């Protein structure tokens, strides 16, 4: 992200340098981008932060599982059963490699980031949090990384504390010592804000957390699809992310946990596969990852997640970051010219490809709905970050977020859709 050459604020699509990434070739991989909307409008999809579209390799992969070797996992010796096990272990190994984990068995399949964080908050939290302990959070976190901690804190007599943000929407690490106490047991932080786009310095936060004896959970939902992650180098203890945001299927997510922590924790869901022995009197648990994978996995989805990882790594994070940064900078430059428009969050060098904004005298819901009429799909609302919006002083924002398939021309469409909405809402020229 750093070391980027300073950008010409007036850069135009024609002169736009797409870096090493051939965006037209990438777009051809995504069937949905080629379906015209009613009235022949082209689709301008700018909501990848909510959920990304899927390349055909991922779509085909799920189909291939169902058509060629589907069976339940970890249960049968027959050929399809063995094949499914194999493929699932293949995804586990790909995730391990993607995040730099020590072993594949530290990779747990879940239904998504929300489930992964709830798993840790419950199965680690209820086991290890005591009255008076503290959890360090901050106001930019997604509800998925706030509510589970508030609830487990309430159950255990622990307290949530919130590291403040700087005026431009970054974590204010200069105030760390005021908020991190000897009773802080857990620091849970997002890799990238889903509203401000802010990229947090995880390596440094992990170091601070560990120096004080706390455990670090990284909410990687937004950061994983857009930049490299290395849990070992960064010393991340838990990492949660969702398949559907990294161009994989809906219905599957991941929890990474350091082996010793996974072994020490309680299980979360009880059921099949997570047990060692069950009797009518009680039960003992399997080793991780099985211990946390009760019940039938999202089989076809977990296998196709491996394909999504291959797809992303085939492009390479260097090219992805460069491309998305260029889009972001171009969007910042162009949106800044729009009257009454305010971008929330830091300047592009501290951000990933997310631009959240408000326009004076225009309600975000009206803006999003009117932009939809121009085929520009953006999200509005609190984006599951009510405390952040409280902090921003607005009840809702409009968010445009970029993925590997977006183009500078789509930034132009974004701008003209905003102008269209402003005009429909009779805002001054």
């Amino acid at each position, binding site marked *: 992200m750093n070391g980027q050459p300073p950008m010409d604020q007036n850069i135009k699509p024609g002169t736009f340098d797409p870096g090493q990434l051939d965006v037209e070739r990438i777009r051809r991989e995504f069937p949905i981008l080629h379906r015209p909307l009613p009235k022949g409008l082209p689709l301008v999809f700018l909501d990848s932060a909510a959920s990304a579209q899927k390349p055909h390799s991922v779509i085909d992969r799920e189909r291939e599982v169902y058509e060629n070797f589907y069976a339940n996992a970890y249960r049968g010796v027959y050929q399809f059963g063995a094949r499914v096990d194999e493929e699932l272990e293949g995804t586990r190994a790909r995730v391990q490699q993607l995040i730099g984990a020590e072993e594949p068995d530290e990779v747990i399949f879940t239904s998504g980031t929300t489930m992964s964080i709830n798993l840790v908050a419950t199965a680690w939290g209820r086991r290890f949090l005591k009255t008076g302990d503290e959890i360090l959070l901050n106001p930019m976190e997604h509800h998925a990384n706030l509510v589970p901690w508030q609830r487990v804190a309430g159950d255990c007599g622990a307290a949530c504390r919130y590291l403040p943000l700087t005026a431009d929407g970054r974590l204010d690490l200069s105030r760390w010592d005021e908020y991190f106490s000897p009773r802080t047991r857990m620091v849970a932080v997002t890799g990238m804000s889903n509203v401000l786009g802010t990229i947090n310095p995880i390596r440094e936060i992990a170091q601070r957390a560990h120096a004080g004896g706390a455990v670090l959970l990284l909410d990687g939902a937004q950061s994983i699809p857009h930049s490299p992650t290395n849990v070992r180098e960064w010393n991340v203890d838990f990492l949660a992310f969702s398949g559907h945001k990294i161009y994989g299927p809906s219905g599957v997510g991941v929890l990474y946990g350091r082996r010793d922590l996974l072994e020490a924790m309680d299980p979360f869901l009880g059921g099949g596969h997570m047990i060692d022995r069950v009797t009518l009197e009680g039960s003992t648990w399997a080793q991780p990852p099985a211990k946390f994978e009760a019940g039938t996995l999202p089989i076809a989805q977990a296998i196709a997640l491996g394909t999504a990882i291959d797809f992303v790594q085939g492009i390479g994070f260097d090219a992805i970051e460069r491309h998305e940064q260029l889009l972001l900078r171009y969007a910042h430059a162009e949106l800044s010219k729009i009257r009454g428009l305010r971008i929330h969050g830091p300047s592009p060098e501290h951000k990933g490809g997310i631009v959240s904004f408000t326009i004076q005298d225009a*309600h975000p*819901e009206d803006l999003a709905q009117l932009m939809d*009429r121009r085929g520009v799909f953006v999200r509005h*609302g609190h984006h599951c970050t009510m405390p952040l919006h409280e902090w921003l002083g607005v009840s809702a924002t409009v968010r445009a977020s970029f993925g590997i398939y977006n183009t500078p021309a789509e930034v132009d469409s974004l701008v003209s859709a905003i102008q269209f909405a402003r005009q429909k809402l009779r805002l001054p020229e």
Partner: protein
Amino acid sequence: MSLSESMNIEQLIQEFEDLGDWDDQCDYLIDLGRELPKLPDHAKTEEHRVRGCQSNVWLVSEVKAGSPPRLEFIANSDAIIVNGLIAVVTILYSGRTPQEILEIDPRQVFARLGLERHLSSQRRNGLFGMVERIRHLANEAAANSTAK
């Protein structure tokens, strides 16, 4: 007198039919929304907030004495298109007796307006949240007037 006060629901349905296209209907909702009578800020309380809407919606009613009494509704949202939908709802319900209000099948009206095709289920939940509140107020008014 605003657009919505001068119109009945059959005229509105006709207007929507004439417009035909969702884009034009949506523009028309914006017009209706812009002209919606405003609620004073002090009325925008938690008590008057309607559940189930994505944007904030507040709704108050006034009972015009008579036998039977008639109800008037004023509602506001911070979003203009939602205000347009509120105008539709008040055109449908304002100035009616509790009995009349309870007899209306709002689904049928929204269907004739073609709205359900263009509103997300969330939006429709919001609309029905408003309708529910209105029916509740009508029930109350009916009970009060027979109690007297």
